[in-house]
């Protein structure tokens, strides 16, 4: 295979994949999509980078250690359930508001979107943990966990 083609395609497609994954995550509350599938698609972007440029490059593009990414996501998802508890309603009850955005009848934002963001990070982190871990090869023995 000509690496030039692979490099070019990866360089072009990885941002597109990331963008689409974000769109999927954001629209997902009311229509098909969501944090889970968004996170998976984001992981494919980094997997593509890994295939084209190698494991270290993909890891560098991710910037954060995948375990920490998943942990942060879990915290965000759990936190999204807390505001409703403060109001005395059950954990994870949705709280919605409309942001006044000119030209529309208001932008709907709420805690379920925060939850979706958390799931997005959990799935991205976990998937990258697997993908980078499996690509590590046989030179290392002990799994690297928790940074």
């Amino acid at each position, binding site marked *: 295979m000509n690496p030039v083609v692979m490099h070019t395609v990866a360089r072009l497609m990885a941002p597109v994949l990331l963008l689409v994954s974000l769109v999927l995550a954001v629209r997902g509350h009311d229509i098909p999509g969501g944090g889970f599938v968004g996170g998976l698609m984001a992981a494919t972007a980094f997997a593509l980078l890994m295939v084209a440029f190698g494991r270290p490059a993909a890891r560098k593009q991710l910037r954060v250690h995948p*375990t*920490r990414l*998943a*942990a*942060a*996501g*879990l*915290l965000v998802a*759990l936190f999204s*359930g807390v505001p*409703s*508890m403060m109001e*005395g*309603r*059950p*954990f*994870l*009850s*949705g709280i919605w508001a409309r942001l006044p955005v000119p030209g529309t009848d208001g932008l709907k934002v709420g805690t379920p979107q925060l939850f979706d963001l958390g799931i997005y990070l959990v799935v991205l982190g976990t998937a990258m943990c697997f993908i980078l871990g499996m690509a590590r090869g046989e030179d290392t*023995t*002990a*799994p690297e*966990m*928790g*940074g």
Partner: protein
Amino acid sequence: MTPSALLSLPMILCLGAAAAGLLTPSRAWPRRWLALMTMVALAAVGAMLLVTVRREGIQSMQVGGWAAPFGITLVADLLSALLVLVTGVMGLTVVSYSAATLPASKEAGAYYPLVLVLVGGVCGAFLTGDLFNLFVWIEVMLGASFVLLALEARQEQLEASIKYMSLSLMGSVVLLCAVGLLYGAAGTLNLADLAVTVPGLGTPNLMTAVSMFFLVAFALKAGAFPLFFWLPASYHTPPAAVTTLFSALLTKVGVYALARVFTLVFTQDSQLTSTLLLVMGGLTMVTGVLGAVAQYDMRRLLSFHIISQIGYLIAALGLFTRSALTALIAFLIHYIFAKSALFLVSGATARVTRTYDLHQMGNLYRTQPLLAALFFIPALSLAGVPPFSGFFAKLAVIQAALRAENWIIAGTAVVVGLLTLFSMMKIWREAFWKAPPENQPEEPTRPLSLGDGVLGPCMAMTLFMVVLGLGAEPLLELADAAAGQLLDPEEYVRAVLGGRP
């Protein structure tokens, strides 16, 4: 705090602390203290939950406010609340023991977050009011346990975890099949809703078949005969703290799930299930203790005792009377503490002698007097010698069997108790009493004292056993109230479904 917050807090605390632990720098102390604090909080939440349930009856909440039976339901009756409290106490014990025994490099890794995830999964399994969520929480717990077992990646551990994982996953497949079949037949998986719909389905044979799937799946998780092979194959390989955690919590979830499902949902063919459970319980008791008698590795021996004690619990469930369920709950609590104490002491012993092999030990009675005392009390308690907690728990089981005129179970329980005493005395004789083997270099070992941190958790467990023995009355009272709730599903259904008929 509102009951609805109390019900969701155990899982939020554990999973949140696990995630926060992974975000802290990779050092021993922040992760250790975070885990310790979380376990203290969990025990406090468990205690508050127990008080609330005792005072105001069964509590339930709907996650996200989606009404049952469509949403995710969390329920706490007395049994669940009691078990969450015990889980918190055991978590605290194991974490403080880990802090005293594990190398700092291990503490700095993913160890504490994994323990927290496991404990969170166990709490979720105790509190969920929905069979599919029960499956999910069991998977959360098992996932963490797979990693904990293989964390040091030594050869014997990897071998053990392959056996453990493949057998556990087989159980999970059976459980998932059972859940799917039940959903297909009843159209709901909410336990309270099932308690209402299953009796009116008009397909009792199908329900009996489905209930057998559940029986097999949960019996495998509980380590009952003939599905216990994964347990002695794996429990002796991880560090003592991990073995303690596993023995205290994992198999108990299986027993809890059996008790929940067969008191709440599958009550239509109780003759068959009760016979099966009795046979299974009796055989589990006997095979477990016979396996233990043959062992010379301290932790393998204790692992086989887990199985034999599980037999008592399953037999008590099979008797299915109020006194038997009371005995089951009291025995469960006693046995979590007794078994944990023994595993913790086995870890401390191995620290002194650097081995788990009974042949290589000896004379600890003289060199480690405190350790010997801390082994002696839980060993007698496990065997059912008065005045410790085991005596009352075992007596309650035997009395329940006698009252149900089931002479075979009563006789088996007595004989197995004697064999348990015999094998405990074997450890006593080999490790503590006999002269040390001659080929060993005589190195003067400093006697462990309470200041060493290893013995603190052992001491706490032993104290619980004495307290539960001398003050057995309140525990039995609580267990009786919990058994009453198990036998009368109406309150459970009302708490979850509210005014809905």
